[in-house]
């Protein structure tokens, strides 16, 4: 990790020079592969996450078709089990988390007035390793005889409970791919987490104190801390599983005295902080959107921030609410029931502050605002069903029923996905220079909103009517038919809304209305630079003297206390510095050079994983790749030599 200055004549750095791109190659395919620019990495994250969203969505549609009627033969049980496992795993790890990472990457440096993240190459490494893990995980589909409908994917559910996850009960390689793929993904998230903490703490523009940072940046900081403390726990659980499955160890083997509940403790000790890792970025996004579209500052900034910190902390003390029915005893259940319901308090503080932000504003109904308000409303519903879960005795009836499925989709789809869509509508112009079509945006929103409620509201009912989750079939007498049909219809409405979005996206990329630097009359720094932002972000690093700095540049109060625009304020100077090398008092703007090393290092991981499953000979090859990548990385100069 330590980087070392190598004397200029080092043969290794000479040799490396041949394979290095210079910043001038910006634009070629290779420049994307070797990129270390946070904006490009952000786009790569976003696009991959969206592809996986479609994949996970299609998996969900298959599930819904199967469940549309009782005793359906559309999918066989094996396929069904693999599909819901992949659906859950994909949506959580390959969609919401990387989509959030996309926003971290795109926005954090711009919002704090930095040229890039603290460790650009570590950032690239993190993306490539995520992609490697994601592809590796999905490759498991092909380990079965896929043409004959035998998928090879994992089939133990997204939380893969022990001892079902042992080789004895789940033979085949699907689960091996799952555990190793997630392991890679975890390392990638860790790298990202470290990077963003350092970036936010250390790379702020002059005057950008912590309390002047946009709430989105705060949420990124909190999420990153959650990541660096939660990921190790799941990593250890997966390590232990790996040893059990591949080397006959006994961690979860009840016969040898092992305790299967150990897995659950570790999984949920990670898993509950994880759900806040999923939702806090969306909270950050709507904390940016609501003030802009109501033309008011965020209400209760300090309270919104501190409730985020409190949620982050409390999330460590509630994990047993996923294990209320495992027989841990009345004391544990009471204790964790109480801590769990208390987490509604800081979350409520956020909800109320958002409402107060809108109150008294001048609200513009543009698509980002629609999605943001949708998030507040739908997340509240999801949160409330969460509170119903945490009422322990009633959870005995709800646990592992469709009521849980309803809850988790309300918070994850209604909260996180709606928020992320809002973010896409909001910042699309910043990174493409064009607006997404507004009419289509509204259609997209209403279709998704109605489809979403139609899909998941009935699941509350079917759950309370005793429908367990993860069943591929049910008896027609159970009274669940109507509710399931509604869900299935709703799911296709959602799919339609996603198609509308895709159409809008591709059309607007080419034909969208030009946005200019600040289409929404926004408040934060990223809108003070041209759209799309130049490679170097800020021609001169800004000096910040207040929260919502950009807004204060545009508006002021006149004698009567009315707020009036400043005539010359907010004009964005989008000429490139005449001579780039002369940017900042003769220093030149040093951009980190592109590098292949992160990709090489990341590619070692799937090689090792494949080796562990199929042929140990590959393992050293993988290690060699990693070493080559890391050494090259440390030895090549970080910026182009002058």
């Amino acid at each position: 990790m330590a980087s070392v200055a190598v004397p200029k004549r080092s043969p290794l750095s000479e040799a490396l020079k041949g394979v290095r791109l210079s910043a001038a190659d910006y634009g070629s395919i290779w420049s994307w592969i070797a990129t270390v620019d946070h904006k490009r990495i952000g786009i790569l994250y976003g696009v991959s996450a969206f592809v996986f969203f479609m994949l996970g969505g299609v998996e969900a549609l298959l599930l819904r078709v199967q469940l549309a009627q009782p005793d359906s033969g559309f999918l066989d049980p094996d396929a069904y089990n693999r599909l819901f496992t992949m659906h859950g795993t994909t949506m959580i790890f390959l969609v919401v988390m990387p989509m959030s990472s996309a926003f971290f990457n795109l926005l954090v440096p711009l919002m704090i007035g930095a040229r890039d993240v603290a460790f650009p190459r570590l950032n690239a490494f993190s993306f490539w390793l995520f992609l490697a893990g994601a592809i590796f995980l999905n490759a498991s589909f092909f380990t079965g005889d896929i043409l004959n409908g035998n998928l090879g994917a994992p089939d133990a559910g997204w939380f893969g409970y022990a001892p079902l996850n042992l080789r004895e009960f789940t033979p085949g390689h699907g689960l091996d791919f799952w555990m190793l793929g997630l392991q890679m993904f975890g390392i990638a998230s860790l790298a990202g987490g470290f990077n963003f903490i350092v970036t936010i703490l250390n790379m702020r523009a002059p005057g950008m104190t912590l309390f002047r940072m946009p709430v989105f940046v705060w949420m990124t900081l909190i999420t990153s801390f959650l990541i660096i403390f939660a990921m190790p726990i799941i990593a250890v659980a997966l390590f232990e599983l790996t040893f059990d499955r591949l080397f006959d160890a006994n961690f979860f083997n009840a016969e040898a005295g092992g305790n299967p509940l150990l897995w659950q403790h570790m999984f949920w000790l990670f898993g509950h902080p994880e759900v806040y890792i999923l939702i806090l970025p969306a909270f950050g996004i709507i904390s940016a959107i609501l003030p802009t579209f109501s033309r008011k500052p965020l209400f209760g900034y300090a309270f919104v921030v501190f409730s985020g910190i409190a949620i982050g902390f409390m999330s460590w003390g509630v994990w047993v609410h996923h294990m209320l029915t495992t027989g841990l005893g009345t004391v544990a259940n009471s204790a964790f029931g109480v801590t769990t319901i208390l987490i509604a308090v800081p979350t409520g503080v956020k909800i109320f502050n958002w409402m107060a932000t809108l109150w008294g504003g001048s609200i513009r109904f543009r698509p980002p605002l629609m999605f943001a308000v949708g998030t507040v409303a739908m997340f509240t519903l999801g949160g409330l069903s969460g509170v119903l879960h945490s009422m322990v005795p009633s959870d005995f009836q709800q646990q592992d029923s469709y009521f849980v499925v309803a809850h988790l989709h309300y918070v994850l789809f209604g909260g996180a996905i709606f928020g992320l869509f809002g973010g896409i509508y909001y910042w699309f112009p910043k990174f493409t220079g064009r607006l997404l079509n507004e009419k289509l945006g509204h259609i997209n929103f209403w279709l998704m909103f109605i489809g979403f409620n139609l899909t998941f509201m009935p699941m509350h009912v079917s759950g309370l009517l005793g429908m367990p989750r993860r069943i591929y079939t049910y008896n027609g007498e159970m009274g669940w038919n109507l509710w399931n049909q509604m869900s299935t219809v709703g799911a296709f409405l959602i799919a339609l809304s996603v198609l509308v979005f895709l159409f809008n996206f591709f059309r607007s990329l080419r034909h969208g209305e030009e946005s200019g630097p600040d289409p929404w009359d926004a408040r934060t720094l990223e809108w003070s630079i041209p759209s799309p932002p130049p490679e170097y972000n800020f021609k001169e690093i800004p000096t910040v003297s207040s929260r919502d700095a950009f807004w204060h540049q545009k508006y002021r109060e006149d004698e009567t206390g009315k707020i009036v625009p400043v005539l010359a304020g907010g004009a964005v100077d989008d000429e490139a510095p005449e001579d780039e090398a002369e940017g900042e008092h003769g220093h030149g703007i040093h951009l980190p050079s592109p590098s292949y090393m992160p990709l090489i290092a990341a590619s070692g991981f799937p090689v090792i994983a494949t080796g562990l499953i199929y042929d140990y000979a590959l393992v050293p090859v993988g290690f060699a790749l990693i070493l080559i990548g890391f050494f090259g990385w440390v030895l090549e100069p970080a910026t182009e030599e002058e």
Partner: protein
Amino acid sequence: MKQLLNRFSPRRLGHLVPIFVLLALLGLFLSGCDTDTPQNTFDTKGEVAEKQAEIFYIAMWPAIAIMILVLGGLLVIMLRFRERDPKYVPPQIHGNTRLELAWTIAPAVLLLAIAVPMVVTIWDIGREPSEDAFRVNVIAQRFSWEFQYPEYTDEDGTPLSVFDQSGFHIPAGREVAFYLESVDVIHSFWLPKLGGKLDVVPGQVNVLWLRADEPGSFSGQCAEFCGLDHANMTMTVIAQPQDELDAWAAEMLE
């Protein structure tokens, strides 16, 4: 007049459509609660299920109130504060500490209040089964259930053991203590009308007590995903008066 008309213009009513949809769904949702379907958790037929449903209601009504508060509040705000003059910039209000305290403390108090009956009920239904409970050992195995009745033994002293998923018998009106054991992976024992579930964890014996108030037949199923045929790990439990049960057992033992 014009203003009034404007207030109810189709465009504005359009905004209300989703709310109507939501309300309609909510209505359906509430109506779902009192249908008579085999695994309806509200159609309680035993003490434990009843207490659990009670707790559900204790939390549900405040939840619905808060839902109306938040969704209704949002709706009002959206209608009342929508942009009228694009040039208008509202006063920049940064916060209000008293409000913040209010909406921190009020929910906390509400939650602690509903936590009291919750904890009481946890201890209430979480107690050990009583001395005179009818004991049944339940052995879960992928993907079927086995009931063993230590109270009914044959000449050699081996207890009566039943594998018939379509009819396990228990006494009505008497507490039944289920001793749950698994021979392979984790399952979950669930008879919705009699009470919430308890997991069947290999390597430990979990004890769940339930009581069927009246004779009847109750459907239940495995609730923890346990592999390929988890969906079909169902069971029907028949509660009958003690004498009928004894007769049934005697017949089975032959």
